[in-house]
């Protein structure tokens, strides 16, 4: 048997390069194997890097959520684009205790993902709100925990600085109105009202009497001056409410960049660094950063001719107002003097000077960038929210009403390797207590209170469809004489509801039990051995059924929503692509082998005439193809391995934001496993053998007589 095989292999080797057709077949096998090796290796590498991104940033290995949820969990957004509707897990502590009995569960991190709009008001609103808070501190009515320690000369100084700032803004607005009147010939009732208000607050008398009635003066400014500025913006912020202590320990790629971690058991907020830089930084400064980052990339990128960088320069030239409105009179004078010196000009118009300053090109950019951060930035508030400030987040609760909380921003953070990824860098972190306040889960007490109020109103139910008949169908008299009553405000207010003490909330330390005994929407389960993921998911689901936990466990890939399906889709595309290659290959190999078999009719007939059995001929053809597949397959594998090793050493750059997340960093360094190589070889040998079956059978049917006749 072995001797026969040796003979067959010798024949195959001898015939390997005997025919040109073999080169064609070999070439196809080579390309097919190379593609399979590279494609398989790339997908496995992507799968690994993406799992690092998803598992390391927010998902953990397994996610659990309530089986009563309307939608499936999608941490990065689902098909509808919005957040999925998840039912609350009302007793997280019980779930956690139960899950931690499973041998492969390391820890369970409670979570809830939501989003809210942050409205900050315009620049004047912000300055006036600050001034109002300072006066409240002066009058012992402070509600802002950030100002709790302010008093004495420091307080007086801050009040004076804020007032000077307001006066500077008024000067700028007056200038705007004069220009608008001259240039646009704008003279409407609205502009006249604006002018009148500006004239009043420009008067020294207004400021001389400011301190006698600061709140009245502030209301005038807030209602008549602030609406003249229209630079307020809305910011959508996405956050995960979690036990910050456990989160920080479990997701070890998380790094605090500015500030500090939220102290154990405290309420607090950590802003994702990427989001902080891109959405909360002064736009002029951010544009300068973006230009610098582009020039530092090292791809010989220059401003001139680069549409993106030229656009950033133009935007900086045109949009100087944020800078102008941020500076008070003294700081404005200082910056003007510095700019005049730098630009060697005697121009005194601040807006003109800033426009000239922001007119950056490849020659002056670095000098201007350094100047901005050295001379101008220290006088500005570079970020809308500073580390250490309180951030007010207003969200619609699950029950539909609006709820706001103040959370102290302790710092910014990012996940190592994902610093530039918008997907990983857009989710901020919030303590679970604040998250629960915003989520507004209706407790039994709250529901009872609502029920009592409703019962007291004794209102009848009216449906949309029957409204007109129900309300006017009876022909009842619409008018009624009522008696005026007396409404006692104090009696209506219980005095217990909103008596929240912000300072106390900020300082309060919650125990682990307090944090974990309550509502959460989902939770990340970290495993001791991630390789046993599938088994652990099955264990969790079985435990849930047994103990009535009403939870469902899903892998990180399923929890990632659409994003998690990316690899699956990519695999399907690759399989389709490889499938098409191999179907084409099979047809070509089949035809080529047919031709080769027909060309060898005489040889095969002679072999049959001298005693070769049909089975020998069949095996011979098959072995020839297998040897051909093996030789060119190995060559293809070598080529694929070489290519992958080149990619592995040089890396593939992430050119888009989404690639950055998939690559789990700025570069993907793909690797190849033995599995990829073996799979490719097996596939190629099976395909080669299958495509040779018909020609091999035809070869067995060649009769010696026919071979001799042909010879005649």
């Amino acid at each position, binding site marked *: 048997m072995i001797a026969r095989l040796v003979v067959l292999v010798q024949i195959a080797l001898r015939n390997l390069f005997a025919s040109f057709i073999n080169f064609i077949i070999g070439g196809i096998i080579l390309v097919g194997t190379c593609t399979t090796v590279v494609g398989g290796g790339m997908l496995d590498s992507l799968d690994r890097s993406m799992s690092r991104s998803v598992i390391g940033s927010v998902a953990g290995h397994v996610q659990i959520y309530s089986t009563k949820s309307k939608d499936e969990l999608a941490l990065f957004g689902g098909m509808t684009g919005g957040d999925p509707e998840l039912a609350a897990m009302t007793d997280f502590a019980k779930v956690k205790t139960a899950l931690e009995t499973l041998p492969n569960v390391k820890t369970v991190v409670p979570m809830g993902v939501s989003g809210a709009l942050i409205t900050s008001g315009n620049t004047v609103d912000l300055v006036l709100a600050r001034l109002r808070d300072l006066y409240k501190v002066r009058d012992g009515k402070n509600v802002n925990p950030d100002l709790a320690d302010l008093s004495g000369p420091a307080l007086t100084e801050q009040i004076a600085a804020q007032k000077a700032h307001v006066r500077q803004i008024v000067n700028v607005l007056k200038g705007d109105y004069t220009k608008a009147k001259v240039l646009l010939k704008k003279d409407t009732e609205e502009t006249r009202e604006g002018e009148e208000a500006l004239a009043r607050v420009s008067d020294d008398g207004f400021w001389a009497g400011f301190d006698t009635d600061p709140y009245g003066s502030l*209301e005038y400014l807030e209602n008549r001056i602030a609406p003249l500025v229209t630079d307020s913006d809305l910011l959508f912020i996405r956050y995960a409410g979690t036990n910050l202590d456990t989160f920080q320990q479990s997701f070890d790629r998380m790094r605090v960049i500015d500030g500090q971690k939220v102290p154990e058991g405290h309420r607090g907020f950590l802003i994702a660094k990427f989001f902080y830089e891109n959405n909360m930084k002064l736009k002029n400064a951010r544009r300068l950063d973006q230009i610098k980052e582009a020039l530092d990339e090292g791809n010989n990128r220059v401003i001139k001719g680069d549409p993106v960088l030229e656009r950033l320069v133009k935007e900086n030239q045109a949009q100087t107002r944020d800078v102008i409105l941020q500076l008070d009179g003294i700081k404005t004078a200082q910056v003007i003097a510095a700019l005049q010196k730098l630009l060697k000009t005697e121009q005194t118009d601040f807006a003109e000077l800033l426009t000239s300053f922001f007119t950056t090109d490849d020659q002056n950019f670095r000098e201007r960038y350094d100047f901005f951060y050295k001379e101008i930035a220290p006088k500005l508030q570079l970020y809308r929210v500073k580390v250490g400030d309180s951030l*007010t987040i207003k969200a619609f609760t699950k029950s539909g009403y609006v709820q706001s909380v103040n959370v102290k921003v302790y710092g910014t953070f990012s996940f190592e390797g994902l610093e530039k990824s918008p997907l990983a860098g857009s989710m901020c972190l919030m303590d679970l207590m604040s998250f629960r306040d915003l989520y507004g889960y209706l407790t039994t007490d709250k529901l009872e209170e*609502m029920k009592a109020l409703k019962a007291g*109103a004794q209102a009848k139910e009216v449906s949309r469809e029957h409204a007109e008949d129900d309300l*006017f169908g009876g022909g009842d008299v*619409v008018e*009624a004489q009522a008696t005026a*009553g007396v409404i006692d405000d104090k009696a209506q207010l219980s005095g217990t*509801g909103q008596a929240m003490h912000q300072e106390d909330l900020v300082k309060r330390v919650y125990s682990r039990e307090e944090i974990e005994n309550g509502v959460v929407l989902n939770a990340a389960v970290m495993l001791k051995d991630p390789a046993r993921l599938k088994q652990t998911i099955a264990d969790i689901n079985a435990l849930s059924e047994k103990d009535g936990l009403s939870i469902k466990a899903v892998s990180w890939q399923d929890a990632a929503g659409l994003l998690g399906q990316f690899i699956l889709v990519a695999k399907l595309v690759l399989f389709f692509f490889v499938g098409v290659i191999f179907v084409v290959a099979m047809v070509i190999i089949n035809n080529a082998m047919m031709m080769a078999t027909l060309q060898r009719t005489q040889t095969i007939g002679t072999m049959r005439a001298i005693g070769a059995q049909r089975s020998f001929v069949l095996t011979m053809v098959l072995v020839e193809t297998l040897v051909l597949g093996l030789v060119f397959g190995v060559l293809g594998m070598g080529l694929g391995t070489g290519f992958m090793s080149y990619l592995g050493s040089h890396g593939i750059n992430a050119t888009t934001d989404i690639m950055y997340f998939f690559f789990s960093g700025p570069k993907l360094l793909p690797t190849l496993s033995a599995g990829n190589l073996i799979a490719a070889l097996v596939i190629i040998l099976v395909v080669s053998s299958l495509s040779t079956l018909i020609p091999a059978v035809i070869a067995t049917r060649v009769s010696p007589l026919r071979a001799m006749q042909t010879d005649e």
Partner: protein
Amino acid sequence: MSPKTLLAAVLVLAASARAADPTKEELVGMLKTIDDRQRNGGDYKALIYLEQKEKEKADIVREVIVYRRDESDQLMFLFTKPKSEEGKGYLRINKNLWSYDPGTGKWERTTERERIGGTNSQRRDFDESRLAEEFDPTFEANEKLGKFDVIRVSLAAKPGVDVPYPVIKLWIDPTNSNELKRQELALSGRLMRTTYYPKWNKIYSASKKGDVWFPGEIRIFDEVEKSNQTLVLFKNVDLNPLDGNMFTKAWLESKSR
């Protein structure tokens, strides 16, 4: 009856029907009546029950006190119930509508379309009525609303007047100028809200030396989110003078301190 007589009869009937349609002046007169009835010369305070129904959500229930001083065009809301909403409020000063949350101590300038307390009601549902001042009326049709014979009037915002909805349709009982139904349309023509006023209450006001009218009940149906509806019940109205300087941020803040 000859064809000529029949034609003459039809023409006479048509002419008399046209004559029954209110003129523009009459319509403006009706709007003025609606506005004047609700205006009070002095101060006004109302205890209001708000209920919001939304699909697959528990009903939102609120109690709020609305303060009004028509003379100086001032308005304020103070939420009193439930406990979680206590101390929240709105304050209108000139064209600014501020919302206040004692939980954060922050004031925020909101828009005319702000949903009061998360319901479909808006500031204008509780404020002084200014239909005649802000809109031009046009008669549209005679209609039936339940058992009531009403006229449908279309109101278009006057040029330069800033209103949340530029087109309003009103269903008015012409016999007593009672507004029974209202529809508000966006600039695009899209219907936004349908509101019913099934009860109008009146109270004698010493400062006005006449009756002040207020809707005893308002039913608002959201036409965008069809499953949303709001019920507004005026539980009590107090016409006693209010504190002199209460329409301030400081006053509202003091209620939750």
